[in-house]
Each structure stands twice: as C-alpha cells, then as structure tokens.
C-alpha cells in the first residue's frame, strides 16, 4: 500500500496512467483512419478505373457484348421504375404502421409482438426477402421476374426502416401539441394528419431517403428472383399518346437494375468489362452517397431548427 499522503506519489501514478490515455487516443484516431483510408482507396480505385468510361454514351447505351459500347441505359431506367414501385408500396404502409404503433396501438400483447417483429424483420438478411419474393411474388402470385416483383421485394425490405423513422419522429413531438388539438375538438386522425404528420415530416422523409438509398444498392434479393438476364430494351413507357394516357404494362416487364448490371460486369473475366463495372459502381456510389448525405443534412437541420 502506497503512502496516500504523499501527493507527489499520487501525481506520478496519475501521469503514468495518463500515458495510456494518450496511447488510446492514437489507437482511436488510427482506427478511424483505417475506415477513412479504406473508403478513400475504394473511391479512388473506382474513379481511376471508371472515370474514362463515364461519358454520355455510357448513360444512353444498352448493355452489349462489346465492353466499349456497353452502357447502363436499361439499368438506370430499371432502377428508377423499381424504386417507384418500392416507394409507392413502402411509404404509405411504413408511415401507417409507424403512426399506428405510436398513436393508436393499445398496450397489449399483440402490439408487443408487432414491435418485436419489426425489429426482427430489420435483422433478416436481404437475400431471405429475395427468397420470399421468388416464392410468393414470382410464382405464387404470378408476377414473374418483373419490375413489380422486384419493387415489392425491396419495399418489404425497407419497411422496418420507414416504420422506425416514423415512430421516432412522431415520438419527438411533445404531448402538449396533441392535447391542444384534442382541446379544440379534433378527432384522432385530424390530430395526426394536421399536426403530428406535418411536424414529423422531415424526420419521416429522412427515414424514407435512407431506406430508398439502401434499396437502390440491394443486389442479392433481385438476383434471387432471377433477374440477372441480358436486357437490351426498355420497359414499355408508362405514358401513352392516346387515352387513358397512362399504362401499367411496365410493371410486368423484365428489367435490370444498376447493382445487377455492375455485378454482371464484375463477374466477367475480361478487364474491359471490369472497367465498366467501376464506372457503374461510381454512378451507384454517387447516387447512394447523395441520398444518404441529403438525409444526414435534413436531420442536422431539423435538430438545429426545431425546438419545442
């Protein structure tokens, strides 16, 4: 036992321990640096390989057996249409479920089961959603390997993200807002639709953007429904010249999406195709990073501006 009255002795021990503080600081910065450098390497590698391929023709050409003239036209059109289906399916259902769990749900066993189930769904590997879509949408419901089947599969995948974001955004609104609305004679739904949803819209939007950014990059479920094929045509246009001006034929059309196109090129042995993969990857990363960045910015602004 050391002599505790000796203040010098204690100082010495503390300064000895403080050295560990310093060492750990460096370890922390290094660990962060590994993550940063990996990301830099990934981005730089794709930039060097892919940049020369990124020109107007790349965006307006179909995939081709000749690497130099291959492009991503059918892939980005496919991605846009699949995301459209995903958003239309996942947004109302996700917000609806979030609102129900936060505002309507009675405290009972069933509610608790739903809550546990939502967290479990968030942890199910994405490829399992692909198997569900293969069995249910492609064969059972007969959608085939179509935009509709892919869009719905991705919608199920991002549903937990939208639900959780909605719940958190609504939970942040103070009770006084609800009480004020009820005091003026508003019904429950009027309170939700006129007050809670508008006030939480930025938070919900953040969740939707993060969910869609994840869906854009998902490859496994789409491969699983069997969509890796050579697609050198566009789905039928949703807008028609003659009455009724809109058509839903595109929903059942075969398709390809950006990550699938990239996977297809990566898995070819020829180097020329791998350059195409780099270019497609670059487009994909820029798309997802922009969306995630937008979500982070929205959240940042929300935190700054909203003070209840």
């Amino acid at each position: 036992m050391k002599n505790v009255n000796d203040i010098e002795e204690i100082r010495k021990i503390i300064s000895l321990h403080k050295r560990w503080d310093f060492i750990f600081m460096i370890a922390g910065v290094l660990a962060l640096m590994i993550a940063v450098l990996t990301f830099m390497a990934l981005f730089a590698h794709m930039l060097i390989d892919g940049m020369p391929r990124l020109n107007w023709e790349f965006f307006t050409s179909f995939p081709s057996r000749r690497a130099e003239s291959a492009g991503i036209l059918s892939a980005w059109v496919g991605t846009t249409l699949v995301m459209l289906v995903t958003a239309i399916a996942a947004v109302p259902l996700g917000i609806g479920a979030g609102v129900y769990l936060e505002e309507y749900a009675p405290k009972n066993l069933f509610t608790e089961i739903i809550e546990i189930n939502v967290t479990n769904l968030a942890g199910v590997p994405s490829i399992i959603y692909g198997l569900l879509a293969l069995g249910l949408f492609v064969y059972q419901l007969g959608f085939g390997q179509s935009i509709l089947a892919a869009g719905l599969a991705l919608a199920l995948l991002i549903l937990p993200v939208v639900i959780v974001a909605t719940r958190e955004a609504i939970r942040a609104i103070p009770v006084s807002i609800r009480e004020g609305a009820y005091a003026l004679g508003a019904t429950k739904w009027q309170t939700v639709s006129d007050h809670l949803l508008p006030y939480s819209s930025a938070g919900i939007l953040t969740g939707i953007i993060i969910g869609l950014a994840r869906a854009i990059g998902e490859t496994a479920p789409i491969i699983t429904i069997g969509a890796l094929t050579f697609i050198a045509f566009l789905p039928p246009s949703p807008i028609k010249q003659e009455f009724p001006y809109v058509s839903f034929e595109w929903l059942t059309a075969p398709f390809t999406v950006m990550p699938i196109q990239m996977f297809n090129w990566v898995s070819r042995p020829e180097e020329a195709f791998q350059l195409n993969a780099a270019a497609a990857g670059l487009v994909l990363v820029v798309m997802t990073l922009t969306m995630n960045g937008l979500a982070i910015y929205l959240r940042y602004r929300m935190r700054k501006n909203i003070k209840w």
Partner: protein
Amino acid sequence: MANESQSKISHPGKLGYSFRRNLNERFIEAFLFLSAALSIAIMLAIVAMLAKESVVFFQHVSLWDFLTDTQWTPLFDDAHYGILPLISGTVVSSLIALSVALPLGTIIAIYLSEFAPFTVREFAKPFLELLGGVPTVVYGYFALLFVTPLLQIIFPELPGFNLLSAGLVMGIMIIPYVSSMTEDAMRAVPMNLREGSYAMGATRFQTAIRVVMPAAFSGIAAAYILGISRAVGETMVVAIAAGMQPNLTWNPMEPAATITAYIVQVSLGDLPHGSIGYQTIFAAGLTLLLITLVFNIIGHMLRKRYREIY
C-alpha cells in the same frame, strides 16, 4: 345520445356529420392497423415460404444427411446434400470479418464516446454513416479487384477467389454498424458514473474501460451479436470475392461458398420451379434465417435490458 344532439347544434343542416366523421375515423384506424399487422404477415410469409419448400426438400434428403454429409453438390449427377461446406465457408468469412469489425468498431466507439473532441465527432459520425450506406456490390468489387491483388503481393500463392479478402472487406463494411450501436450503449451510461470515477482520480482511459464499458456491457454485447448476424447474412461481398464453389475448409486462403453465395449461384442459373435444386435454396435460406434469428433475438433482448437499466 348527448354527443349526437351536440353535433346537431354545432352543425345545423349537417345531419349525419358526426356519423360520417366516426366512420371515417374507423376506416383510417383500420388501415393503420392493417399496415402494422402486415409486418407479422411478412414474417409469417417468410417462414411459411421457406418451410413449404424445405419440407419437400427434406422428403428427398434426410435431416441427418443434410447435417452430416461433407459434400454439397446438389446440381451434380452424384448429388450430395450436406450443408457443412456452406456452414464452414460462412463461419470462416464471418470470423475474419468479426476479427476486423469488433476490435476496430469498439475502439472507434470508445474514442468517439469518451475521447474525441466535439468537432471530430461531428464529422466522424456522418462519415461512418455514409460508409455504411455504400452498396454491398461495390464492396464486393473492391474486395475482388483491389484487396485481393494487394494481398497477393504479401501471399503470392493466394487464389483470385478467397475467403480472406472477402472477410476483411466485410469486416470494414460492418464497422459503422458495430461502432454506432456500441457508442449508443456507452452514451446511455449516465454522466454521474463518469464524474464519480474522475473524482477518484481515474483517467479517461481507466474510466472508459473499467466504468463505462462494464456499465454498457449488455448494449455492447447486443452490438456484437447483431454484427455477427449481419456478417452471417452478408451476400454480395462473398459471392463476388470468395467464389461460389462449396468447399469444406477452415483455411481462409481458399475459395469457398457461404450459404448466401450458394443461393446467389443457384439463382444465376436457370433452375426450373419445383425442382430439387430450386428447393435447396429454400432449405439453405431456412438454415440462414434460423441462425440469424437466434442472434437477433439474443441481441434485442440484451439491448432492451440496457435500455431498462437507466
């Protein structure tokens, strides 16, 4: 009754307003309930779909063969249906990933939660979030065309497809996931525990290791377990960089297939609906779902516990 007369007074000439309003409310509540209940329907549909095809599969293949046969060659003439080679690939790639993600993720979390100045944290957290948003197929490309050639400089005999590079990249990919959950758990530890420790003359490092980490134990354990489940279910990195040939090996320098990579491999081919090959991916999927579900449930139970303590 009272309600009805009131609404008549406040809305003269609008008979039935209250009735319509109530109907409207009921209708909306029903829609909201259905969308919440849909999550249960999805889970049931997943289980039912996997179980339905797996039942047919297990009529052809006994459970004993499935668990003990050391070969997985369902598409060959001499078909073997042993899940072990796929399990070994999954275990090896996950172990490599976790040996990267858990230490680095933990160090980053401790650093950000206990050491980093405000500005570093403000930049590091969104950056990590962006890192987590990069599509997995891009990480696969990176593993195959950047990390593997790099590793081949150190290990010249390393084949083009191998578990090592896939595992390493997967580990980097999971870092943001582990670090953000670990940090959340550590931040949930109340300030007065730290203040007490500082008052006793402990340094930041001592406080972090001996006070904050034990207090956040269940949260950190949850982060690890959910990280494991993420590694086990990861698909594209291993499918691209580790090859898709089932191979019963514990050597990370060899190519091998994981459960997920096998499902991808079969899906790439043109298997007729209802064939035994088609059923194998559902049996493999069921195995995967069971593994991840066990980890997820343990993880969420632990997470709930640390939330309840404070």
